[in-house]
């Protein structure tokens, strides 16, 4: 069983999927933007599609919304194949990466638009727009045009406009991508709160792994159009299926070496018993799983290159024989003990290590 099959088999079948993506592919000529991706999105979850730029996230989202036709596979909403439906007949809404607010309409008119397209009674439209304006804190801006709004305000309007029809699933394409870091962190919490409040399934695209870890109930990692792993942030962080995911999610140290026939990983100055079959590969260790020992004790020797300030934590950059740069997290109260040039020795806890064998040549 390879890692992908294991991940698929581990998915519990007890949750009915609100949105089921079945081996969906999309090719643009010779470019395969999405390659046989299968995912189940569960009701009311906050699901993140994560991957580097160009991995096919937007394309997948646009297929869900109906703007691109899959070249293979099916998309089921509540068990029904929605592939033949045009975007305007799908009970999903998309929040565009560029917001795509109607520039000739006020905030209020932008929000009302979706309900007007449903031919709702005027009174109901007014009531629902006012309600949502209040929920999203936009009441004071109701009569402004998009070009009179700040980036954060536009982002809220785009979100409110996509929510007003109470879609079964809300699709968000990098919803916080255009905001500066501070505002983004604030909006991450607010978006989570709003999702709880409205009780709608969210599928959010992002290239920011930190954002996905913070916000998602579950997440999928895509690369070159293919699904690498799907799971909770904790599963993905603690048991990445391959070296790419391990590197992409959080901070990871890789130490090149080989496992000997006795099952011990060996690199210059380092032995870690792993109980694995022999072969070359990389040992993966999180910065928080490396311990700095006082003095040149029985650990792997290294030299501190510099000490980086991270609030409560410090990250030591250590050069060792086995790896030119190891990142080691230490609590701030110990950090004062180290400075650049110091000789240290590092201990790596085997239980916190992962090993990724080199691909067979």
């Amino acid at each position: 069983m390879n890692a992908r099959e294991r991940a698929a088999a581990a998915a519990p079948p007890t949750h009915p999927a609100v949105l089921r993506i079945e081996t969906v592919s999309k090719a643009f000529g010779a470019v395969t933007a999405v390659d046989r991706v299968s995912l189940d999105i569960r009701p009311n979850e906050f699901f993140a599609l994560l991957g580097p730029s160009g991995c096919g996230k937007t394309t997948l989202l646009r297929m869900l919304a109906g703007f691109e036709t899959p070249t293979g596979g099916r998309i089921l909403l509540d068990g029904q194949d929605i592939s033949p439906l045009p975007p305007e007949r799908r009970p999903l809404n998309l929040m565009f990466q560029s917001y795509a607010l109607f520039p000739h309409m006020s905030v209020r008119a932008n929000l009302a638009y979706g309900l007007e397209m449903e031919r709702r009674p005027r009174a109901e439209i007014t009531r629902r727009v006012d309600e949502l304006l209040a929920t999203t804190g936009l009441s004071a801006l109701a009569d402004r045009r998009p070009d009179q709004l700040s980036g954060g305000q536009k982002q809220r309007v785009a979100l409110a406009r996509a929510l007003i029809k109470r879609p079964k699933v809300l699709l968000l394409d990098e919803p916080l991508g255009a905001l500066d870091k501070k505002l983004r962190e604030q909006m991450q919490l607010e978006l989570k709160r709003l999702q709880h409040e409205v009780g709608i399934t969210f599928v959010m695209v992002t290239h920011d792994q930190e954002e996905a870890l913070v916000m998602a109930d579950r997440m999928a990692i895509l690369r070159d159009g293919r699904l690498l792993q799907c799971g909770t942030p904790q599963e993905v962080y603690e048991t990445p299926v391959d070296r790419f995911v391990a590197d992409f999610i959080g901070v990871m140290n890789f130490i090149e070496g080989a496992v000997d026939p006795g099952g011990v990983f060996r690199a210059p100055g380092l032995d870690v018993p792993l109980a694995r079959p022999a072969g070359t590969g990389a040992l993966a260790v999180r910065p928080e799983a490396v311990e700095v020992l006082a003095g040149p004790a029985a650990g792997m020797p290294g030299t501190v290159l510099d000490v980086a300030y991270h609030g409560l934590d410090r990250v030591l950059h250590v050069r060792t024989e086995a790896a030119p740069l190891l990142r080691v997290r230490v609590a701030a109260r110990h950090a004062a003990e180290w400075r650049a040039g110091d000789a240290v020795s590092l201990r790596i806890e085997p239980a916190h290590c992962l090993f990724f064998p080199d691909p067979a040549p």
Partner: protein
Amino acid sequence: MSPPDMKSGLLVTPAVAWLVIFMLAPCLLVLSYAFLERGTWGGVEYTLTLENIARAFDPLYARVFLTSARIAALATLFAVLLAYPAAYAIARAPRRWQPVLLFFAVLPFWSNYLIRTYAWIVLLNREGLVNNLLKALGYRGEPLSMLYSEPAVILGLVYNYLPFVILAIYSALSRLNPELIEASHDLGGGALRTFWRVTLPLSLPGVAAGGVFVFVLSIGNFVTPALLGGGRFQMIGNLVYDQFLAANDWPFGAALGMVLIAIMTALLLVQARLAARAGGDTARPA
């Protein structure tokens, strides 16, 4: 003036000089005639008067203004109605075909205005191509007299200015962010309502630019009414032409021209205001 200002000042100098010497100065000169008395053999007497301006508002001439405005308005209407679908089709064509299609749309414009207008005489006269074609198709009645009529003048104006309108509307449509259309579909808007609520309003600056262009050029036009109207339709342009070249009443011609320029300027200002208000906010993201 700071150095960069001075540099750009120097760069525009030739163009400004050209406009002042060959455009602004002659115009002001002619317009100043409006306040002078006519000379017996053309030219002007240097005596100040407001009589010419007053005469330009005489009901007789007001009617000519109204006729011109009506013809120009109809030409504008038809030009916009014809140009919009064409511009829309070009803007929605595959990107690499768009320059080719635009080239063909603008192609007639590269031939001489007079020749293009004469071509319509060849087509429309009683022994012309259209009547011959009808005859060949079995039509046995009197040949249709299409030429020398108001519709013929309007046809000529529409034909001549259509490329501008197509270009203006195309440029508005091609600048429209396609995600706005998608957003409308996403929110439940079908093709028709999306067009009506999003595409059309956002392309109105282009429609206004093209429309004002046709109107302004049509209301002052004298070649097309002279050729296709057969002199039976007096538009302001013809009237001004006649004052200068036939009636030898330069001051009155200048007064009429002044009113015409005032109308045109007002329209262009309104259009510029509209365009500025619509602003660049329909543009696609970078």
